[in-house]
């Protein structure tokens, strides 16, 4: 049976407030026929869905989510359709567009010549919708720009923040009045608060608007969930607020009913409970808004207009109109609209917003420019090479967004625990009630009982009222409402922070794994070194001229694309030698090359190659060892089975290699170097750069095995290398770090992508990941730790010794404090700067000349 092809899509879901909402939405989506996987991120409000497009449709997913009380947020586009003449045109377009998998609704208006489409852009892009209409033979132009959709999302977020703020103001203001009224007879309050405010009927009229106004959302949401057999945190709040309010009402109007009498009206509990829960909600809404700032900042970088040169004339057009191959003009101070290659002109460009590079980069004809970067001094023209979703900026945004919709393993555990927590809390509330009803009350109740931090006496309280009070407190105090935000908010802040420095994590799991790394393997050539070697020495035998040995070596390497071969050919040409073409050429991976020229068989390579071809190195070996001890790569040259000489080649260390390695050591990581060089040479380089572990003489295909060997020692290993050449080793490592990928991010293998070719970013990446996961753990501590500590208190564990119980409103205040801790802790991440990036630029200079020569391996 052919394997079904799954598609991935990200759907915006609104109305989620806690970790149990996440579990509910995931469960609902997984229940849809054809949906294989659903992962919901509370902080972004997005569900990442893997589905079979042949079976699952957006409408079914939307229905499933809507049914459980949440809402799938779709984008809508207004299109101007031309060429429609009759009702059948309308039907055609509606049918064709409506059949697209990501379209929920399409309404075509013949007289207005318009079509309004509600769709999920991750499933069906707007371009696909437009293409479908064009293929039917109609003209179509978009009326709404993408930015507007983005603004709409921001407006929705702001609406939610405003709504909770209004609720908070109402509930907090009235709640304070209710509290003052309740405590009017106590302390010094009789002198400043009028006695009528303590009237229970007045308190009833002050509390009811809080419960039925701002508090209504909890009752409605929990009822919607209950109707579908789903329990969430709203239910905890609703039962808590409802029970406190109901007891107060009964005791006000039917004081003889046995619920504790007129003195046990907990209006302030219902009022302040509502206020504190809404305070938590408000803080969560703010956190969600703040942590997605990174994405918004990136999106804002995108220039809206471009100056296209057509028929010699510059014309300003929307950036969406730019096509690949268009020539664009950029003036000083303007943002570069799309990616491209400079055609004419000269300038310096500030690329810091994309690469994190603080110094402007000079650009001349033939150089690449990145869209959204800022042209500083000169004017130039460039040819567009990547537009729309292909630009570096669009790819970075996509990568950061994708990273934010994934879940770190630690979050999966937290979500599962939080999901079960709600049921556990209700079960605990039931046990608590039964315990205090049948055992606790008779054993320990005294008329001097008080609520903690209040002058309230519970002397008139009956067994039912007392057991119910403690049961409600357990419900409120146990609510893990901050758990839902603890991990995703930190991950979002961390991935955004990484993007600021040109460090892109491909998922939350990559970030978590990066934080756990114990060893880092660097590929040598092109990673630790610049990868641009040059000829340093030529040693000859048999009175041959140096130039002849170098010429032979260059002939053999002329067709090679290896940096070492290019260095030899370049070295020969620089010395004025003519380099002829070899008749045949064969590269032997990890050893060297074989070539034939004018009937001679030329060999150029390391000892292994010479040994295999039975070439004696007796006269050359001591010289080779000397060169290798200087950190150079010695390549033996032989012809027709006779040794001729040695060509030594050396690469140069990158300026930051030694600092990066020492910083990694300081952070407690093992650092290893992977190279095809022989051990002696490799160790010479390792000494210069400060690496303690050398994996030498490794053939390209064996790099993966070397990574495996380190993993077998129980180490969590990162491999740093070229995202394309070292792809298998990057894939094998626990974390593959592709360095210097430039702007073509999508092609990269590896879970962490460093845009710049700077090893310090490996250190910065680790520091960002560690800081993020530390933040996650701190958040989880504030979210769960609070519950763990507070539940026994809510259960009344101190009551037998102190005759005091926690009031529901104090429980709610503690709960809001937990949300506040998580919020403030996450927001602290905004000011985070990796240690290695704190004013280090001026300190890093080129290495001393003696350290600069390095050998190159194949």
């Amino acid at each position, binding site marked *: 049976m052919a394997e079904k092809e799954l598609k991935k899509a990200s759907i915006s879901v609104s109305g989620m407030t806690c970790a149990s909402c996440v579990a509910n939405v995931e469960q609902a989506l997984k229940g849809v026929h054809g949906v294989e996987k659903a992962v919901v991120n509370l902080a972004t409000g997005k569900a990442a869905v893997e589905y079979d497009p042949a079976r699952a449709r957006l409408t079914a997913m939307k229905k499933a989510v809507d049914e459980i009380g949440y809402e799938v947020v779709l984008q809508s586009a207004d299109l101007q359709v031309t060429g429609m003449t009759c009702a059948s045109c309308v039907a055609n377009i509606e049918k064709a567009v409506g059949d697209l998998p990501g379209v929920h609704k399409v309404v075509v208006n013949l007289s207005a010549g318009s079509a309004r489409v509600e769709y999920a852009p991750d499933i069906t892009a707007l371009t696909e919708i437009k293409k479908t209409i064009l293929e039917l033979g109609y003209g179509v132009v978009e009326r709404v720009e993408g930015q507007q959709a983005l603004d709409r999302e921001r407006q929705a977020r702001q609406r939610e923040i405003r709504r909770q703020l209004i609720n908070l103001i109402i509930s907090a203001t009235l709640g304070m009045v209710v509290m003052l009224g309740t405590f009017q007879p106590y302390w010094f309050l009789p002198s400043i608060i009028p006695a009528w405010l303590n009237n229970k009927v007045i308190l009833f009229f002050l509390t009811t608007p809080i419960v039925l106004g701002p508090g209504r959302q909890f009752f409605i949401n929990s009822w919607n969930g209950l109707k579908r057999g789903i*329990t969430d945190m709203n239910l905890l709040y609703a039962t808590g607020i409802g029970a406190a309010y109901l007891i107060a009402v009964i005791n006000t109007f039917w004081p003889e009913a046995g619920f504790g009498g007129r003195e046990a009206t907990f209006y302030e509990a219902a009022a302040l409970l509502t206020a504190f829960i809404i305070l938590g909600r408000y803080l969560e809404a703010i956190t969600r808004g703040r942590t997605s700032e990174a994405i918004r900042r990136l999106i804002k970088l995108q220039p809206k207009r471009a100056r296209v040169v057509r028929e010699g004339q510059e014309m300003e057009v929307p950036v969406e109109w730019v096509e690949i191959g268009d020539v664009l003009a950029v003036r000083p101070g303007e943002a570069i609209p799309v990616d491209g290659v400079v055609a004419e002109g000269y300038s310096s460009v500030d690329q810091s917003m994309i690469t994190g590079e603080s110094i402007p980069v000079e650009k001349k004809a033939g150089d690449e420019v990145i869209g959204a970067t800022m042209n500083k001094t000169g004017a130039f023209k460039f040819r567009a090479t990547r537009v729309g979703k292909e630009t570096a900026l669009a790819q970075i945004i996509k990568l950061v967004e994708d990273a934010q919709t994934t879940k770190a393993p630690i979050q999966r555990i937290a979500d599962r625990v939080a999901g079960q927590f709600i049921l556990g809390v209700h079960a605990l509330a039931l046990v608590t009630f039964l315990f205090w009803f049948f055992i606790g009350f008779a054993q320990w109740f005294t008329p001097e009982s008080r609520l903690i931090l209040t002058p309230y006496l519970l002397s008139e309280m009956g067994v039912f009222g007392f057991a119910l009070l403690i049961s409600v407190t357990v419900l409120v105090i146990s609510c893990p409402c901050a758990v839902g935000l603890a991990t995703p908010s930190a991950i979002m802040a961390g991935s955004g922070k990484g993007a600021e420095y040109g460090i892109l994590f491909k998922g939350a799991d990559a970030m978590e794994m990066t934080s756990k790394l114990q060893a880092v393997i660097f590929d040598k050539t092109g990673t630790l070194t610049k990868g641009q070697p040059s000829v340093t020495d030529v040693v000859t035998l048999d009175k041959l001229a140096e130039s002849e040995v170098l010429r032979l070596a260059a002939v053999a390497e002329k067709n090679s694309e290896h940096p070492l071969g290019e260095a030899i050919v370049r070295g020969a040409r620089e010395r004025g030698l003519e380099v002829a073409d070899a008749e045949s050429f064969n590269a032997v991976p990890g050893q060297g090359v074989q070539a034939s020229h004018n009937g001679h068989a030329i060999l150029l390579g390391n000892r292994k190659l010479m040994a295999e071809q039975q070439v004696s190195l007796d006269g050359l070996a001591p010289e080779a060892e000397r060169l290798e001890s200087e950190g150079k790569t010695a390549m033996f040259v032989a012809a027709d089975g006779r040794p001729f000489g040695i060509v030594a080649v050396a690469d140069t260390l990158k300026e930051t290699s030694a600092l990066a390695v020492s910083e990694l050591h300081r952070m407690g990581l093992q650092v290893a170097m992977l190279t095809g060089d022989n051990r002696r040479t490799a160790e010479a380089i390792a000494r210069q750069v400060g690496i303690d572990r050398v994996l030498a003489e490794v053939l390209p295909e064996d790099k993966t095995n070397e990574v495996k060997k380190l993993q077998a020692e129980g180490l969590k290993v990162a491999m740093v290398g070229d995202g394309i050449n070292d792809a298998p080793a990057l894939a094998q490592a626990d974390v593959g770090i592709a360095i210097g990928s430039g702007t073509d991010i999508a092609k990269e293998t590896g879970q962490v992508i460093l845009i710049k070719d700077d090893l310090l970013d490996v250190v910065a990446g680790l520091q960002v990941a560690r800081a993020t996961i530390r933040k996650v753990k701190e958040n989880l501590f504030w979210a769960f730790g609070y519950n763990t500590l507070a539940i026994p208190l809510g259960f009344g564990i101190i009551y037998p010794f102190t005759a005091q119980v926690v009031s529901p409103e104090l429980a709610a205040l503690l709960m809001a404090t937990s949300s506040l801790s998580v919020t403030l802790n996450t927001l602290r991440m905004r000011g985070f700067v990796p240690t290695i990036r704190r004013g280090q630029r001026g300190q890093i200079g080129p290495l001393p000349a003696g350290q600069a020569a390095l050998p190159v391996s194949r």
Partner: protein
Amino acid sequence: MKRVGFISAIIYTGISVLAAGLFLVATMNGYSLVERFGGAGWIFLLAMIILMPIVTPLVKKRLGGDRQP
């Protein structure tokens, strides 16, 4: 889907009523009517909340009532 909901409702409501009934029986002596019926009501409510999300998926699994598009 409707059948799953109906059968589930019968089961969790039945068990909750039973729990509340047991509470009433256990409090026949020494408790006021308010305490007995108030307590039974609270137990019924919590039992419903606990049982609903447990019973519904079990019934759905047993009857194979997956949601179809």
